[in-house]
């Protein structure tokens, strides 16, 4: 089996073959790994990798898994699976053109109104998450065609808070 697995921006091929019960051999680039494994609980596995014991904790996330090893968390994704859903997301990832909060947040104020002309970088919505304020700005020069939120609203990433028509 060959997987193509992505961590941060790096996609690496991982070659895996089973080697008896609870054992696999894996190759990533030049490096070879003899691994035996035991599932300890829903979220915990114990691996022995080239003789060294390693505890791994895993949680499933949307489009990938959070994997904790030795104090560090890795978000690992299957690049092949990702490519199948890529087109839908591409626009958003490539170049942000929408006013949307980076995390679940609460709207603190909306300093623009429908019809306002805004310049790129101008504050259009101020949101707060866990007591920290974030100013969302206009992604380009334009005219505010619609304000979709009001003070106190809870907003999620992906929600378009203000529609701006490019000038």
């Amino acid at each position, binding site marked *: 089996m060959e997987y193509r697995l992505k961590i941060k921006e790096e996609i690496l091929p991982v070659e895996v073959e089973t080697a008896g019960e609870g054992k696999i051999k894996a190759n990533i680039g030049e490096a070879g790994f003899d691994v035996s494994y035991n599932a300890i609980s829903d979220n915990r596995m114990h691996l022995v990798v080239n003789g060294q014991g390693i505890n791994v904790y895993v949680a499933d996330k949307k489009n990938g898994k959070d994997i904790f*090893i030795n104090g560090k968390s890795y978000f690992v994704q299957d690049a092949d699976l990702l490519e199948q859903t890529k087109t839908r997301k591409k626009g958003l*990832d490539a170049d942000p053109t929408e006013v949307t909060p980076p995390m679940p947040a609460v709207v603190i104020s909306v300093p623009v109104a429908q019809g306002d002309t805004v310049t790129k970088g101008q504050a259009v919505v101020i949101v707060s998450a866990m007591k920290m304020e974030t100013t969302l700005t206009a992604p380009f020069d334009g005219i505010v065609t619609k304000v979709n939120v009001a003070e106190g609203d809870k907003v999620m990433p992906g929600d378009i808070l203000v529609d701006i028509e490019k000038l």
Partner: protein
Amino acid sequence: MFKKILIANRGEIALRVINTCRDMGVQTVAVYSDADKKAMHVLAADQAVYIGPSEPSRSYLHMDKIIAAARETGAEAIHPGYGFLAENAEFVEKCEKQGVVFIGPPSNVIRDLGDKITSRKIMLGSGVPVTPGLTSTEADTDIMIKEAEKVGYPILIKATAGGGGKGIRIVRSSGEMAEACSAASREAQNAFGNGKIYLEKFFEKARHIEFQVLADVFGNTIHLLERECSVQRRHQKIIEETPASGMTPELREKMGQAAVTAAKASGYVNAGTVEFLVDESDNFYFLEVNTRLQVEHPVTEMITGVDLVRLQLEIASGNKLTIDQKDIIGRGHAIECRIYAEDPEKDFFPSPGKIEFLKEPTGPGIRNDCGVYSGFEVPVDYDPILSKLIVHAQTRERAIAKMIKALKGYVILGVKTPVAFLIDVLTSNPFVNGDVYTNFIETHFSDWQPDISDADLARIAFVIDGMCGSRKVIKRISTTDEAATPWQTLGNWRQ
């Protein structure tokens, strides 16, 4: 002693107070908002009273609801924790009027010390050295600029009310003043309901060292040694320890005396913290008094063997301090790391969401004051602190090693945390050498990225988890939809 108290707080500090109450046989009443129906403090208390919607102003900051909850449940006293109403003199007055004991200083002391202007005046009057800066609050940007020029840039805009790193801005030139003032003021207004600000000198390289004090109603006042809290991000402490590196017995004696003087001069009662800045020549300046239990109080408990919450309750119920200054002896070294729901790769941006999995570190000398559990949805509405990990060992070197070990076993999946960041800080030469100043993180870790040396193992684990994957199934209680990872949908924003 009280038979029952109400805890007007949430998260780890509510748990911390409940913990001591259980030791003392004191019944506990929790209060909670919509976001906290399944929060851990609700699960841990003997009783819990719903007080309203998630917005703090309609629940945890709603004084009348909280006092009503105390009266309805027969709670004789209210422990405010830190944050929320902990330093709100109006709330304390309301408690006093309604015959509910406030576990903390009297309202007038909170008012005096909570107003940084008044507190600076009190300290100046009693011979405690204070940082250069304004002795009055100021709303006019032009006057602020004039004052800043007197003191000399950089200066610090600070809220006269509150603490916890909110309502603070560094200003390095007059051009930045207007926006800094309005941002600080707005943040202060949101956090404390009071947008007043002033300025004081900003020390580029100073240590933040504070002294825990305790005072009973009979005028007995002692200090419980220092805490070093220089390692901060966004003006908020993230690593605290005691003893402070480089602290000499002479300086400790002098600063401890000053802390006791500060407490006495302000008529202090109950537990409080006198904060100082210490410059590179060991000159120290009074910063403020935190008129409440401090987030980092556990490191003091670890080395002194004292339970500060127990003493808070003893003092509030009118008992005399049974320990005096000579009983306070530090043993070993303690370090605390704050575990926030935040992303150290992205300027410590908050990371609310569901805790998919939590495994707390345990072991001799390890204490974890934790307010969340596997499956809990960390709300967007409140401070991002999840827990505080505290270690105690015979020496600083061993405490650092123990903390690193504990962090490596602290599994939190589902939200971002600074665990990997903290490990790198604790491993770094400047930290190991005790070269810690308030600019520590900007200086050494401003562009921190996690080392990904185990990325190969993570990839292998991904494959194996898939092979074992049928063990994982949808469970009935996991009904909440998983929030999207913020950084996948990052819009156009700036802080």
